[in-house]
């Protein structure tokens, strides 16, 4: 087996516990696995911002401007250089299979999140984007979780978000349109939580039409 990320031969680690268990299919080498660096305490209880005690400034601001429409966000990894590189290769170069290196960790985090059983919704991509990338990253993640999702949204304009400043992004116009309301609690799934604006745009529309609670699950924060 080769490491999905660096392509070197994986040398299986043999310890007493792995010795007795049936061999698992390793997807990444020990060195790459070590760099995954899951988010751990302390983090903001609202948005999972790593290395932060208590509710962070951004979350406080959201609470002030709109009584917050988002229950909470759970993220798995800090969006550091290592993960940025993987994301660039996965999403922008289109190396679909790379996301498998996160599978085990995000499945575990998903089970512990308390989101299981809620209606899963993936963030939609514009037609233009999906043509160029060939896949929707949120759906890829949901596939890894073994869940099924719906997308009751449509994009009214496309996602050239990263080009704008942070402040701009926090107050930009809602690019989504809700086509179908839901009365069940939902969890929105996407790859990255940056300002939380995208997710709150969707959450606001859902709440307005009677959805009891909206949370989100993102791989990176």
């Amino acid at each position, binding site marked *: *087996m*080769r490491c999905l990320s660096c*392509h070197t031969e994986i040398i299986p680690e043999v310890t007493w516990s792995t010795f007795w268990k049936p061999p698992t299919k390793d997807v990444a080498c020990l060195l790459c696995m070590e760099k995954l660096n899951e988010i751990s305490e302390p983090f903001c209880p609202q948005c999972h911002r790593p290395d932060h005690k208590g509710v962070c400034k951004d979350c406080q601001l959201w609470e002030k401007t709109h009584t917050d429409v988002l229950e909470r966000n759970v993220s798995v990894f800090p969006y550091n250089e290592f993960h940025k590189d993987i994301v660039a*290769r996965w999403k922008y*170069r*289109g*190396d*679909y*299979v790379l996301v498998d290196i996160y599978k085990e960790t995000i499945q575990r985090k998903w089970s512990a999140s308390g989101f299981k059983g809620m209606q899963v919704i993936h963030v939609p991509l514009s037609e233009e984007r*999906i*043509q*160029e*990338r*060939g*896949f*929707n990253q949120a759906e890829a993640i949901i*596939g890894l979780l073994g869940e099924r999702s719906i997308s009751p949204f449509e994009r009214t304009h496309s996602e050239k978000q990263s080009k704008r400043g942070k402040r701009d992004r926090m107050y930009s116009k809602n690019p989504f349109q809700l086509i179908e309301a839901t009365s069940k609690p939902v969890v929105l799934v996407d790859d990255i939580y940056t300002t939380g604006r995208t997710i709150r745009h969707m959450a606001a529309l859902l709440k307005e039409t009677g959805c009891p609670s909206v949370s989100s699950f993102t791989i990176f924060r």
Partner: protein
Amino acid sequence: MFKTVKKYLQKDFSWIPSENPTHSYPSLTGKLLLRHEIPLEDEIVDHLIAQTILTKVTSIESYPWAYRCRRCGNTKSYMFAKMPHATCGQTCVYCRFCIQMGRVVACEPLYYGSSGFEWPLHEHPCQWKGELTVHQQKAADELVALVRTGKGEKLVWAVCGAGKTEILFRSITEALKNGKRICLATPRTDVVRELLPRLQKSFPKVNIQALYGDSPDKAGDAPFIIATTHQLLRFAHAFDVMVIDEVDAFPFHNDASLHYASERAAKPQASMIYLTATPRKKQKRRIRSKDLPVVFIPQRFHGHPLPVPQLKLTPALHRYLQKAELHPKILQQIAHQQQTPRQLLLFLPSVKMAEQIAEYLKERNYEVRSVHAEDRGRAGKIQAFRKKEYRVLVTTTILERGVTFPSVDVYVIDAGHVVFDEAALVQIAGRAGRSPDDPKGDVIFYHVGKTDEMLDAVDSIHYMNRLGRKL
């Protein structure tokens, strides 16, 4: 079944159309592109396909036991993966190996562009007024003959500092006179950047294009292309004359995909010219069995012999290196050397050791810096050394090729280490004595026991010097 196995095992390019109608799109000529790399409307593309100026070809060959990507030649199973492909609604195989250059997916074709574009004829393209040495002249003649005949190969085995670019000028001229298309491929971006202005100066009226990872030029629509070997992944049956620089070097040597691409980029009737200072075993075998014609340039352009390395046994070498220090004998030699006007290049087996020894020498008040592959200040440090802003440069094998300084002595510390193979040692020794103003230079290999690689390197240098004297 037998046929399929054979097709898989051999490099097979029979899928490239042999009909090449003439057209007026230089940027498509001899190309193998993804749809999004063709900046034309669908209507025009369809029109070009109808005229077979563009031909859609399968991008990934599928065998019962494996795949092959036709752009990069990759057949390694772990370098292919499947994905649910939203564009076509199927689960599709894609190539992970060449994905940096845009993703090749099995359901999407590659577009081959006819090589039928007619390149301009240049009557007197070369403005270079320099003179060639006897050895250079002989090689240049043989290359002109090769370009005239067309199909064939020749290895130019030229010592470091032979002036191998200049010997190409006459064959390049010959090609340009006849409207032939030329590619000079080299493994390193630095070399491409350095060659462009030199060649442009010698061939001022010719459209020459440099292609590398982030080159300003991307079109690849010139009759004379200088490119990193990687860029050949976008070409097929494009060139009449193909010059491959440093065939023995990383990443060309052992990198199957670049061999695949360079073979495909040449036309079936192309003249192939390989340049090297240190042929690998495989090439030497082909030379011995008279399978690969060779021409030697055993002498430097300034006519002086190559400095022969002195081997110095230094038993306690490792004990000192472990303490991040140099053996007193070596330190003594450096102190001595620093009294002379020459600068010093010091080679160490690893980046860590290079940094430690630079630090060690700095503490002893030497003007010293170290440089390694990932060093961001690399180009600046090398430039400063060339301008003689400091006296000692400590480095690893990354500086073994290409980079030249006019007047240096060269010491290799722990020359028996595995990173110093024969080719590396010959290249390292070749850094000394490059300038006609100071054609000598001391090369010392410090070791704890002679290795075959060291002895082979010395033999090969002696051999070249003997050949040089004979003629």
